[in-house]
């Protein structure tokens, strides 16, 4: 069996394991959706009726078969909590979440990488100190604090940005106006996540770059009299790329899982809050579907990262070829 066949087989195995664990874990958690109803207007008989409606009166093997069938056909059923098809719920939430977290991931990784490299190249300078300090501050603040401060300043005191949501109420008519309205609404949430996220990238890249610049092959390149730009781009940056790509790709599934606090503070219709409520509310179909899709995305990103490793580092291709 060659390398890629082995990788795909192990990915399928991981997904099968996730499928089983998804089913078992939620049912092993204390409580069930019906037991959590604390309402004196619901008699024990009414609760039993509800259990029947959810299919929870069936035996566990029957429930498991139904679950596997629905998951593999991507028909995840009706959410216990919202009463709407789980796919509809995810479909309506994923675009906002992907835009919010995808944009902020891109911006914070680019900004962080650029600042980190600048700091590594100017060791001991004020710039390096600033990057280290601001970087540490950036991921030290709790997100809700930064976001509420931004809301207070830029949505209340200086009402440049809206307080909530992704659209004005009522929304403007016309495609361009609608797009501009959407971008204006998403600006503060994205800005807050970039502020909170770029510091980690900057410090990581700076440390990585400092280590690479001290390696023998960089010294050799300098001794050969290669131009500084060439050393930086063709040797140092290229060496740094594989671990950076890995981190970036592993962060990708996170852009779908959502950001609960950000979604709450800015009243965004996203996946994070839905997922949290699904887990705490024992919403088996919703939680099962969301975790399965996340696992699928994580496995896909892992495969992609393996593939890109080969592209960015020829040694990896060579070693695999020699096996």
């Amino acid at each position, binding site marked *: 069996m060659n390398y890629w066949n082995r990788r795909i087989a192990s990915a399928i195995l991981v997904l099968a394991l996730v499928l089983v664990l998804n089913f078992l874990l939620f049912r092993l958690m204390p409580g069930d959706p019906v037991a959590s109803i604390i309402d004196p207007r619901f008699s024990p008989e009414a609760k039993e009726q509800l259990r029947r409606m959810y299919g929870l009166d069936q035996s566990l093997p029957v429930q498991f078969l139904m679950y596997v069938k629905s998951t593999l056909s991507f028909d995840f059923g009706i959410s216990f909590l919202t*009463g709407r098809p789980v796919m509809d719920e995810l479909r309506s939430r994923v675009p906002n979440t992907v835009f919010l977290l995808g944009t902020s991931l891109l911006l914070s990784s680019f900004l962080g990488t650029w600042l980190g490299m600048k700091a590594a190249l100017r060791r001991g300078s004020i710039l390096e100190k600033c990057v280290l300090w601001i970087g540490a501050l950036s991921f030290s603040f709790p997100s809700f604090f930064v976001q509420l401060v931004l809301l207070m300043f830029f949505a209340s005191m200086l009402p440049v940005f809206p307080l909530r949501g992704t659209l004005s109420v009522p929304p403007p008519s016309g495609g361009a106006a609608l797009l501009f309205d959407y971008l204006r609404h998403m600006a503060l949430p994205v800005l807050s996540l970039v502020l909170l996220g770029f510091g980690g990238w900057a410090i990581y890249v700076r440390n990585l770059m400092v280590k690479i610049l001290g390696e023998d092959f960089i010294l050799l390149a300098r001794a050969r009299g290669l131009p500084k730009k060439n050393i930086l781009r063709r040797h140092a940056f290229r060496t740094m790329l594989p671990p950076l790509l890995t981190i970036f790709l592993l962060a990708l599934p996170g852009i779908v899982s959502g950001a609960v606090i950000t979604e709450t503070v800015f009243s965004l219709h996203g996946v994070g809050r839905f997922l949290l409520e699904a887990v705490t509310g024992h919403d088996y179909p919703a939680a099962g579907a969301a975790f399965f899709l996340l696992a699928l995305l994580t496995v896909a990103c892992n495969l992609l990262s393996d593939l890109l490793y080969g592209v960015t580092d020829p040694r990896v291709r060579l070693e695999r070829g020699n096996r």
Partner: protein
Amino acid sequence: MIEIYTPQGYRKDEKEMKRALFLALIAVVFWMLPGGAEAAPGKFDPESYSAPKIEDLYLVIIRDPDAQILALQRGQVHILGDLHRPVDVDALALDPKVNLSLASGFHGFFLGFNVRTFPWNRVELRQAAWQSLPRERIVRDLFAGYAEPLSTFLPPVSPYYQPDVTAYPFNPDAARKRLADAGWTWSEDNVLVSPEGERIPPQRLLSPTASVAPTTAELAARAADALTAIGIPVSSEPMDFATMISRLNERNFQMYVLAWQMTRDPDSLYAFYSSKMDIPGGYNIPGISDPELDVVLDRLRFAPDAMSALAAASEAQKKLAELAPVAPIYSRYSISAVSREWKGTLVTDRVTADNTWSLLAMEPAIGPMRPLYLVQGEEPRALNPFTSSSAYDWQVLGLIYDSLIAVHPYTLETIPWLAKSWSIETRHDDSGPHTILTFHLREGARWQDGKPLTADDAAFTYEYLRKNGVPRYFDNVDNIDRIETPNDLTLVVTMKNVSFWHLHRVGGIPILPRHIVEKVDDWRSWLPASVKHPENSSMTQLVGTGPFIFREYRAGEYVHLKGNKDFWLGRRR
């Protein structure tokens, strides 16, 4: 003299400030609202209302409480209900652009005991525990006075509230004396020992975690301290809420703290304290079982008329105060805020400004009509009248669908709504006595798509709910024996047994349009807000008889409703 406790110590000057603020708030409620509290209780007449003056109503989804306050202060929304953080109430009380309204609510918070086992199977211990709880101080410290100490099993706002019951005011010395009189002693390490010589083992008080419910967790810690001080070794055990409920359902606990949202009907006492409800899925969590109490609660549940219900409710509360299966602690006020840019709100001591009567009468204080924006704290869900159970769904659905009866905002008595009158009688046949409810519907009431409302719609709704065993309405329709419609405006519902509460259970069900619902394939997955009306392309299947017509739900953003200018209560004035 009562003093305010602060982390820095006792400061009497704060007492004056808080009291002044509180009195100012009350004054705002009753006297300063433009258009608020216009009618005295005796003068309130539902028939004086008509179709809503508001043309466009937007329920804007804002989840974060700080963002809600900012939006109200910036005039981006006009009504904000369910204020529960004292800091927000204080801030808004000082805002000249906002009116606050405050009302007693049906919320009740209780400390519960597992009375099935030692030591809580001893009534004198439960009474002493109740007596050792500093309820007034808890309310002052944790809620800055925006709640009231509770010493009964129904909140004071309930029409069935009985204040004349055995009281257990905070007095730790009296609690110790009560125990000493009953033969309890204290060990050297101040732990109570029963008259039989059994030492109280360490007790765990279950509560939600501070991250989920900070005030509840703090309250549990304070209760534990208070009980430990009289010799009951209690420590609070914060845990995931679902796990806690699971433990309570399995009866695997010693003590717990839990809040309930009760209704105007006191028959919830039956659900909470009848021994018949100490079964899987039943709400008799403490496990109280007292034959005399059971008899009284049966009389309450099956009371044939209002007077018998009142008598049974009073007796049940007195009996419960003696048995002390739980210790009531506090009841939270309902508080809402309305922008002064609007007038016409109705506020009573039992209803805050964010109610349907207000939405019928509100209009801008100055200037032309414009959209009204109301904060919706969470996403509505399926907007399916069969399955929706969240308050956020019903904030929308309640403005679209009507039921046969309504609630008087001053007295909480039942008043006519879609039914202009009704009669209740008890008839006997071979199977025993039955309550017969006869509703006389209004003439001229129409569905929002123009079709006339008839008794057949109501009969169809009840039959549909019964036939399909819809869980949300299971208890409302389970006791219906048969339904008849002698004519288009008369509905006769024969119940299987006798109970005064049948009127509220049956009459309170929202009436659904037969011409829409009978074509629905599966009521469980029905999404009426997303499906086009079969005949009117500008409408969805979310069609009621209510004062507002559904226009659009944009997930995560808002729900848009239009005022129903042809509302059956009278055309827009």
